[in-house]
C-alpha cells in the first residue's frame, strides 16, 4: 500500500487535529474516538477554560486536591519531562506565559495588540509542585500556575493514536498541530510526514520522512508569535529566565518512540540553544534543527532528503 487511504481534520485544542487510517473503513470510528479523546484532554488540561480541571487546580493555591486520572497522567508526564530535562521543559511556566501576554486562546492574543505590558520573572520551578501519582493528590503553591502546553498535546496524540488503533484494530496516525503519533499496523510504505517550520504550510521547504512507529514532533519559535511590551514574543519559555527562549534554533524536529518523548526533546532543544545539538547526538534521537538563519542541521540518523 502506498500513500494514505483516508484522513479527516478538524479544529481542536486551539490547533489542527488530523487522523489518518490505513483502512478507509475505519475513518468514521477513528474520528469519533479522536474527538472524544480531545474533548477529555481539553476538559482536563486546558489553561484557557475556566472550568477545566487544570484551571480549578490553579485556582486552589496551597490546597491538596485530588485530580482525575487523565490530569494525573498529564501532570506525571509534565513533571517527569521537567525532571528529565533538568527543568528545561517545566510546567510551572503558566504565570510566565500569562505575564508575557499569552493568557488566552492564541487567536485572541493576536488581536490584543502590542501595547500589553509584560513582566519577565523566572518560573518557580517544578520542584515546588507536590504530587503523588498513586493517589492523584497534588498541591500547587500560591503564586504558581501550571501550564501543560509543552507536553499535553503530545500526550494527547499518543493517547489518541493508541485509542483509535484499539477501537478499530487497524493502524492510524494522529497529528495535533504537528505533534504526530502512530499506532497499530502501518501501511506497507509507512506513514509519510512532511517536516517543515509551520505545520500549516507544508509547501514550504522541508523534508518528507517515513515513520512506522512512535512519534515525531516539531517545536519552533516561528509560530505563535506576538508583540507585547514593545518586543516580539513567542510561546516557548525558558523557565530559568521566564522569558521567551533565545532563538539559536528557530525550529527543532525530533523522532522518538513516543510523541511525548519527541516533543520534550524538541522543546528542550529550543530552550537549550547551542548545547542542543550535542545533547541530541548523545541520546541518539534523529533530529532536524533549523538555525536562526535558516541553516539546516540533520543529526542522530535523521535522513538526508531524497533529490
Amino acid at each position, binding site marked *: 500500500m502506498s*500513500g494514505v487511504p483516508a*484522513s*479527516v481534520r478538524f479544529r481542536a485544542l486551539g490547533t489542527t487535529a*488530523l487522523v*489518518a487510517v490505513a483502512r478507509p473503513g475505519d475513518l468514521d470510528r477513528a474520528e469519533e474516538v479522536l*474527538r472524544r479523546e*480531545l*474533548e*477529555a484532554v481539553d476538559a482536563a488540561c486546558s489553561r484557557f477554560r475556566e*472550568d477545566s480541571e487544570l484551571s480549578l487546580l490553579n485556582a486552589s493555591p496551597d490546597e*491538596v486536591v485530588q485530580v*482525575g486520572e487523565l*490530569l494525573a497522567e498529564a501532570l*506525571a508526564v509534565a*513533571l*517527569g*519531562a*521537567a*525532571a*528529565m*530535562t*533538568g527543568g528545561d521543559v517545566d510546567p510551572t511556566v503558566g504565570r510566565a506565559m500569562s505575564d508575557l501576554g499569552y493568557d488566552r486562546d492564541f487567536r485572541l492574543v493576536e488581536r490584543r495588540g502590542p501595547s500589553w505590558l509584560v513582566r519577565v520573572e523566572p518560573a518557580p520551578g517544578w*520542584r515546588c509542585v*507536590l*504530587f*503523588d501519582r498513586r*493517589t492523584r*493528590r497534588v498541591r500547587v503553591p500560591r503564586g504558581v500556575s501550571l501550564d501543560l502546553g509543552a507536553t499535553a498535546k503530545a500526550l494527547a496524540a499518543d493517547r489518541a493514536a493508541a485509542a483509535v488503533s484499539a477501537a478499530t484494530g487497524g493502524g492510524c496516525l494522529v497529528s*495535533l498541530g*504537528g*505533534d*504526530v503519533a502512530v499506532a497499530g499496523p502501518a501501511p506497507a510504505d509507512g506513514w*509519510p510526514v*512532511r517536516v*517543515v517550520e*509551520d*505545520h*500549516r504550510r*507544508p509547501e514550504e521547504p522541508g523534508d*518528507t*520522512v*517515513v515513520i*512506522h*512507529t*512512535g512519534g*515525531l514532533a516539531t517545536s*519552533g519559535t516561528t*509560530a505563535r508569535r506576538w508583540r507585547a511590551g514593545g518586543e516580539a514574543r513567542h510561546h516557548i519559555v525558558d523557565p530559568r529566565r521566564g522569558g521567551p527562549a533565545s532563538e539559536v534554533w528557530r525550529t527543532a524536529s525530533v523522532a522518538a*518512540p513516543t510523541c511525548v*518523548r519527541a516533543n520534550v*526533546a524538541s522543546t528542550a532543544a529550543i530552550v537549550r540553544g547551542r548545547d542542543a545539538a550535542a*545533547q541530541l547526538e*548523545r*541520546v*541518539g534521537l*534523529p533530529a532536524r534543527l533549523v538555525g536562526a538563519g535558516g541553516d539546516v542541521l540533520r543529526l542522530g540518523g*535523521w*535522513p538526508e*532528503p*531524497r533529490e
Partner: protein
Amino acid sequence: MTPDRTPQRPASPAPREEGNRRVRRVTRGVAAAAILGTAVFGGLAWAADDDSGATSSGASATSSPSLGSFFGDDDDDGHGSVDQGWQAPSATQQPPAATSGAS
C-alpha cells in the same frame, strides 16, 4: 471538514476530597511541611496517611536530571521504555499523510 464542537465537561468530573480524612487540607507553611514526605519528581510526595501506607509511586527522577536519561532505559514518563521495535525515520518522496511543524 466538520465544524468545531464546543468541548464538554467530562462525564465524571475530577473528585475533590475536601473533608475526606485521607486528604488533609493544607494551608501553608508548617501545616504543609507536616504531611510531606519522600522526594519524588523533584517535588515531594505525601507521607503515607492512607490505609495502604504507601507513598508516591513516582520515579526517582531527581537522580537523573539530564535529557539523556529521559530517553534511556528508564520508564519515567509512563509511556514505556525505548521501544525495541522502534524504527528511525527514512527519507521518502511519497505524498505526506501529515505535516509536522510548529503550531
